[in-house]
């Protein structure tokens, strides 16, 4: 709760700072400072929260569990890392720098809501708070038609999915007479109420849209490709992780009891997502677009957590979100250093910028799930969770095959950097600070890779 209030207030402060201060660098530093403050608030809430105790707010509109606080903290930290890594690129996007940062704060409010809502109304509002700023950020580079196009596409389809979400909520309400997700009762006679089932499917579809799962994934490549690169990085990481947490929260708290009736559908969606994401990524020429498709593929892996209703799934989701977020942020940070976003743009990077190439290798390893990186442990826990459902072995095998394919396109970057010759043009000299931060990110990945339990404190 503290975090939500703080985020809102800080967002407003940021907004006004944007109006008052004109110097972009100052705004950036202010924003960084405020994010640090927000992180501080989160940690304060974390420390003050009692282990394993969930406290309800406003008669069960909101239930703040240690898990949600922990997730909020991680996401705030990720956002801070993001701002540190790409701040200088964010302020280059357009004029309204302050507003951008304010939007980030508001998005975080949405993230916090999604991690702790207990009422479908709040879930709905949370999703909207998450989405609307993203529509805006997507279109924020007004000199660039692609950005506007991305924004319009994202908006239209997003609104469409909102309608579907609402229909789902309504049908559930119609069957149960409740918006409170912990009070549902689905059974009529010995059967699941078809109304509920229809509603659940509507919800699955709308969430599938938010997490860009097939067949709702079409917006992802275009939007990620068209949006200003720094904002793409944010959308692809924190926003997506939040959507996943909302997804798993809703489905594992309220629909767990009828998982038999939806897990198969979700399993099929997962398989489709893995397939589409991985296969389509193979042929991309632009690394940015490849990352967009790979984010679909990664979403497919994260869906495994939602499919398998178990405690492992929550832990797995935390590890996966963080691992994926950090690695992707790193990749985008590196990408922003380069002029040419195609694979050929990476040719010979190892010669020119060995350090850059090295950290990129680690990010790639993490995304591809090579051991000793966070990505491996994440995938590992996902598979473990999926296997804990006895009947999903086929999905696991399929996911693994797809992971092998993912190695195929991820390693194209490595091949380009190390084994091809070329002279990549950099946007700007890679400053010592950048290097430090990138190395830090890489080290984080390794640390999580060898000690994932750091992300899983007791009692979450």
């Amino acid at each position: 709760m503290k975090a939500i209030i703080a985020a809102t207030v800080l967002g407003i402060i940021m907004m006004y700072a944007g109006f008052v201060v004109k110097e972009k660098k100052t705004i950036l530093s202010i924003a960084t400072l405020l994010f640090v403050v927000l992180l501080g608030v989160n940690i304060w809430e974390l420390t003050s929260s009692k282990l394993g105790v969930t406290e309800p707010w406003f008669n069960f509109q909101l239930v703040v569990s240690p898990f949600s606080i922990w997730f909020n903290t991680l996401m705030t930290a990720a956002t801070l890392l993001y701002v540190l890594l790409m701040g200088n690129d964010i302020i280059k996007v357009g004029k309204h720098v302050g507003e951008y940062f304010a939007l980030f704060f508001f998005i975080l409010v949405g993230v916090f809501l999604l991690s702790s809502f207990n009422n479908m109304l709040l879930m709905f509002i949370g999703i909207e708070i998450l989405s609307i700023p993203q529509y805006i950020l997507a279109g924020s580079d007004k000199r660039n038609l692609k950005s506007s196009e991305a924004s319009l596409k994202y908006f239209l389809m997003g609104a469409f999915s909102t309608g579907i979400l609402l229909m789902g909520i309504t049908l559930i309400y119609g069957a149960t007479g409740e918006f409170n997700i912990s009070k549902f009762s689905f059974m009529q006679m010995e059967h699941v109420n078809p109304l509920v089932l229809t509603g659940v499917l509507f919800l699955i579809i709308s969430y599938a849209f938010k997490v860009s799962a097939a067949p709702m994934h079409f917006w992802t490549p275009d939007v990620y490709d068209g949006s200003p690169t720094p904002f793409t990085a944010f959308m692809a990481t924190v926003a997506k992780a939040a959507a996943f947490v909302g997804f798993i929260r809703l489905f594992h708290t309220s629909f767990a009891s009828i998982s038999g009736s939806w897990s198969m559908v979700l399993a099929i969606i997962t398989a489709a997502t893995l397939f589409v994401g991985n296969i389509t990524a193979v042929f991309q020429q632009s690394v940015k677009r490849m990352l967009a498709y790979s984010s679909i593929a990664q979403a497919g892996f994260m869906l495994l957590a939602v499919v398998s209703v178990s405690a492992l799934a929550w832990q797995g989701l935390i590890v996966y979100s963080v691992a994926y977020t950090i690695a992707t942020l790193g990749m985008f940070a590196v990408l922003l250093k380069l002029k040419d976003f195609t694979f050929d743009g990476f040719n010979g990077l190892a010669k020119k910028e060995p350090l850059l190439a090295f950290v990129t290798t680690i990010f790639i390893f993490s995304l591809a799930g090579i051991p000793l990186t966070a990505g491996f442990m994440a995938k590992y826990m996902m598979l473990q969770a999926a296997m804990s459902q006895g009947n999903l072995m086929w999905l696991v095998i399929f996911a693994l095959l797809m992971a092998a394919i993912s190695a195929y396109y991820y390693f194209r970057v490595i091949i380009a950097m190390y084994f091809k010759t070329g002279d990549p043009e950099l946007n700007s000299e890679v400053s010592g600070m950048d290097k430090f931060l990138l190395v830090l990110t890489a080290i984080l990945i390794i640390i999580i890779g060898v000690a994932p339990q750091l992300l899983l404190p007791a009692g979450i």
Partner: protein
Amino acid sequence: MILVLLILIPFLVAIVSFLAKGAAKNIAMFGSLISLAISVYVASFCGTEQTAAIAFPWMPAIGAQFSLSADGMASMLCLLTGIIFPVVLLLTRNKEIESPASYYGLILLSQAGLMGVFLASDALLFYFFWELALIPVYFLCSRWGGERRIAVTFKFFVYTFVGSLMMLAALIYLSMQTNGVNAMSWQNIIAAGKSLPLGQQHIVFWLLFVAFAIKMPIFPFHTWQPDAYEQAPTPITIILSALMVKMGLYAVLRWLIPVLPEATLYWSDTIMTLSIIGIVYASLVAMVQTNVKRLVAYSSIAHMGLMCAAAFSGTELAHHGLLVQMFNHGINIAGMWVIVSMVEQRYGTQEFKKMGGLASTAPGIAIALVIISFANIALPLTNGFVGEFMLFSGIFQGASTYHIVFMSVAGIGIILGAVYTLSMVQKVAYGENNSGVLAVAKMSTAEMVAVIVLLAFIIALGVFPQPLLDLVLLP
């Protein structure tokens, strides 16, 4: 504790040589010699409390430990690793390679990985080292290999990556059968595997076997190998063929057969058939190769087929012989590659039609070639013989209904082996020098040392194999 050093030293030296620019060559050699010394120590004190197993808590969340242990087999393979790497480094002693720092760093990194694979007694740790050994080799091959290196090595990488993912699935599945505490430890994995019903054992078995079969490689999963061997720089080919393929066998012996005894029994005939088809098939294909590296690659496939068949024949004798043969094959094939690399450097080609006359141009190399070739076809009083004799008699005494057929068909491999090996010797060493290279350099000191070390092992273990026989069976 000494076991940790066995992994740590190459790792640290690797880091150092990454940072060291020019001195990397000597640093790497130094490091590899140290780890050789340690591996000798481990081998000689194997089974005593000096080399006692160790275990630190690591990932309690998923029941993984950092636990190492060295029985006879493991310390034998560590010893082999310790011996091979200095040889590998000797080969490039007098050569200037571009960006030596990363070259030697990666080599030592893979050594650390290999040691880990052989020592790990925790499934997840094993998997980590399995990949750690693979990745540096991937970089080495794609960076310093032949002209088709990138595509070929990438194929090799993806192929083995698929395999290891299969293995990962199986290991996770097994670990989930146990209660959470140290679910990944070898003992628990074994207990889990034994407890599985046969139906699930089949799935897990094939997941594991495919992974290991790709690594060994067993027909028909072998096609990455000739290309990879051909394109890889020869020192790396040594690592690949002398050590990496042993990872597959070792894994079969350590992580497959004891874990899934029933499924093993159920499938052993199938797999022995595959392996033995592989022997004959690879030998026949080897006969018509025109590229020396491909020929040796196929011969290696044939040998691995024999060893794999022995592994699944289920007799003490075959198992014992297999352990011995793993070491001997490592030495022989390494020797073979050393020769090949020397020839390649001198004649500047891998094609037979451009070779020949080595016996008159560089008799020393020719003699070494002949000896190693005969070791390769298991001539008595070379190390190859003892192992292969035990393998054959083991397979022959196997419980399988077809044991006599298996042994006899595998025996055809002996004949064909003689055919292609001798024709290789003939094309490389005898006849006239067709390379157009007039001044063929004699062996340099470094090469001489490498060759002599290997020859010493070949003869010594051929005449007096008992020490090795005793070592490998230590608990």
